Every structure is written in C-alpha cells, then in structure tokens.
C-alpha cells in the first residue's frame, strides 16, 4: 500500500507540473511560428495558440512511464501506445485538413495495440445484474470505444476551457470509481489524465491562451477510452461522460451523418452584440448541447462552461454510484 501511495503522489505531481510548465513554452513557440487561430466568440477576436496536444502528451507519457517503473504491467503499455497513436492521428488532423472519415477510422486503428497486447477482459460488468461475456462483440467494443471517446471529447471542445474542464471532472470520477471497485493499478494509471487536464485547464479556461486542437482532444479521449477498457469499467466510464455522449447524440441525430465541424454551413449558436451566445433560429442547423443550454436565454461563454461543468459533476456522481452498484448483484 505505501508503494501505491508514493507512486500516486509522484505520477500526479509529474503529470500536473509537466503540462503546467510546458504549456507556456508551447504557447510562445506556437505564437512565434504563427500557429494561431482566431477566437471568433471573444470580443476583439483574439488569436489563440493551437494545438496544445504536445504538452498534454508529454505530461501523459512521462508520468505513465514513471508509473511503469513502479508497476510493470501490460495495461500501462497499452495506455501509452494507444494514446501516442491517437496523438499522431490528431496531430495529422491539426496540420492537414482531413476528411470526416479520417478520425473515426484512424482512432479505431489506434485501438489495435490493446487487442494485440491482450490488455482487456471480455466480461462486461453491469451494475446490479452482474457480468455478461460476449467475446466477439467485445472486440468490436474495443475498436469502437477509442474512436467514440476520442471524437466525443473532440465534439465538446467548442468553447474556452470546456473540454479540459469537463474531462478533469470525468477523469477524477473514473479514478474514484476504479478505487471503489478495487482496481488500484489502473486507478493509479488514470490519475495522470485528471491532473494533465487540470493543468491544461489553467491555460485553456476563458479567456483561452491555447486550444488543445485535435491532437489534445483526441489524446484525452483516447486515453480515457483505453483506461475504461483495460480497467474493465466501460459502463462506468460511459456514465461519467453522459453529457458529452448526449452532445454527440444530439448532433448525429440532427445531422444524420458523421460530419466535421468545419463542414457545417449553418452554426448551431450565434453571437449577440454583447458577446453572448444564443440559439440559432435555423431549423437545419445541428442541435448541440450548447444550443440547448442557450435555447431559452443567451449566455456568456463562461456561463455556458459552468453549466457544462455542473452537468459533468452530476454525471460524475452517477458514475461513482454506478461503481458502488457494480459491487452489488441482485
């Protein structure tokens, strides 16, 4: 037990401070190379550095490698490889405009190491009712899961600080759930994700100094999905990000197909003169979580962010309750 506590403190410290210290340097380097994008929703339309993925992956890589020294288990290798592959997918998409098919397919391919390393258990644990084993379906779940979590996190990265703040809440809820079901090694492996997101939030929160970009969002989403698989907490992990899944569900059910945000002609929200966001009156615009939040009254970007965080806390609590329920079989 003392070894676990020491490892937890060390990896949390490394994960947090790597991103905390590296991000300002990355911002300067990106600004120097004109790798900035306009923040249209901000007064004056400030230019913001992008992508923040390199500092996020650095924090994850270093902390997970240190954790591997303490606990040399194949699950940590699976997390490292899959997360690095997701970073490459995101980095390619940051640098070059790819088709809508690219991210789902490439992310699905980045899940292959999990299968090759055998870092999974095809028994799905459901709360209150016990486990069910569907080996064939589970291979599909592994492939689809990384693609779904990666793109789900990417789809909520629409406002300053939302993706990093929301995933901080979801990641810590997942870590607590892993401790509850007594999967301690994977709980420790999940700690860096929460601390990396928390450190990045410092620079990503309103008014953003850096955006995560596809490389940042996909890294966070893919690591979250991989932890869910190697930790055997697929259902709990899905519950913790229900608001983000709801956002993707709204988007897909209104658009009826997978489409890149940049391909959308009619935006779901409009900017008012006093820099608040309001729902668009256009019926052909996609329906999103943000559009629903501002449906009754226009809100500032910061206010919308806090509403999404409250939803995240609510689903995080549901995830923790689900973890307790997994231990109870009717």
């Amino acid at each position, binding site marked *: 037990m003392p070894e676990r506590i020491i490892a937890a403190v060390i990896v949390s410290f490394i994960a947090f401070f790597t991103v905390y210290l590296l991000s300002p340097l990355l911002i300067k380097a990106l600004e120097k190379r004109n790798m900035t994008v306009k923040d249209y929703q901000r007064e004056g339309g400030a230019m913001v550095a992008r992508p923040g993925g390199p500092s996020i992956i650095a924090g994850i890589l270093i902390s997970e490698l240190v954790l591997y020294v303490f606990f040399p288990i194949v699950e940590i290798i699976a997390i490292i490889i899959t997360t690095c592959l997701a970073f490459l997918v995101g980095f390619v998409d940051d640098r070059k405009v790819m088709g809508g098919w690219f991210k789902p397919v490439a992310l699905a391919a980045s899940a292959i190491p999990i299968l090759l390393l055998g870092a999974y258990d095809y028994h799905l644990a*459901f709360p209150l*009712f*016990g486990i*069910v084993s*569907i080996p*064939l*379906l589970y291979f599909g779940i592994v492939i689809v899961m990384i693609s779904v979590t990666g793109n789900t996190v990417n789809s909520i990265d629409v406002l300053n600080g939302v993706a990093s703040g929301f995933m901080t809440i979801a990641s810590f809820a997942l870590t607590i759930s892993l401790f509850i079901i007594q999967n301690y090694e994977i709980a420790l492996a999940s700690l860096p994700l929460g601390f990396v997101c928390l450190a990045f939030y410092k620079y990503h929160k309103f008014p953003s100094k850096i955006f995560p970009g596809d490389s940042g969002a996909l890294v966070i989403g893919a690591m979250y999905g991989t932890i869910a698989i190697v930790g055997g907490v697929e259902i709990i992990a899905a519950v913790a990000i229900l608001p983000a*899944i709801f956002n993707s*569900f709204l988007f897909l059910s209104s658009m009826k197909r997978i489409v890149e945000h940049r391909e959308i002609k009619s935006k779901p929200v409009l900017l008012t003169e006093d820099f608040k966001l309001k729902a668009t009156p256009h019926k052909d615009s996609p329906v999103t979580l943000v559009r*629903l939040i501002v449906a009754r009254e226009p809100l500032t970007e910061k206010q919308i962010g806090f509403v999404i965080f409250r939803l995240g806390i609510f689903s995080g609590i549901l995830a923790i309750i689900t973890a307790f329920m997994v231990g109870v079989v009717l």
Partner: protein
Amino acid sequence: MKNSILIFIFLMWILVIIGGGLAVVILGPFQISGYGEFDLILTSGIKAIIAIGMVIIWIFLLSKIKNWIFQKELNP
C-alpha cells in the same frame, strides 16, 4: 432548461442500468450446443447480434425521450 438536461441525463443513466440488466438476463444464460467446435463462435455471434439490436432499441427510445423533453427547444 438546465433541469431538463439533468433529467434527460438521469433517464439516460436509468436506461443504461435497465439495458445492462436485460443484457445479463437475456444474453447471460444464452448458449448454443450441437455444433461442436463452432458452438462458442455461434453463441458469441448471436449474442453480439442481439446486443447490437438492444443498442439500436436503446438509441430509438432515447431519441423519443429527447423529442418529448426538448420539443419546445427543438421546434421553437
């Protein structure tokens, strides 16, 4: 508005719990025998098809609930 989103997320969670229960009750004891070495793969394949069907029903139900809860916001 925010309350209706919370209610919807709660209903999503309830559907996950119920869906999981149905999966365990229906798929758990399901077993095919009499096909020798293909028993396992046949059982797993049919379980997978049933599970995918259940997910499609889950999405359909969710879509109906969404339209019911957010009808004012979706059709202003």
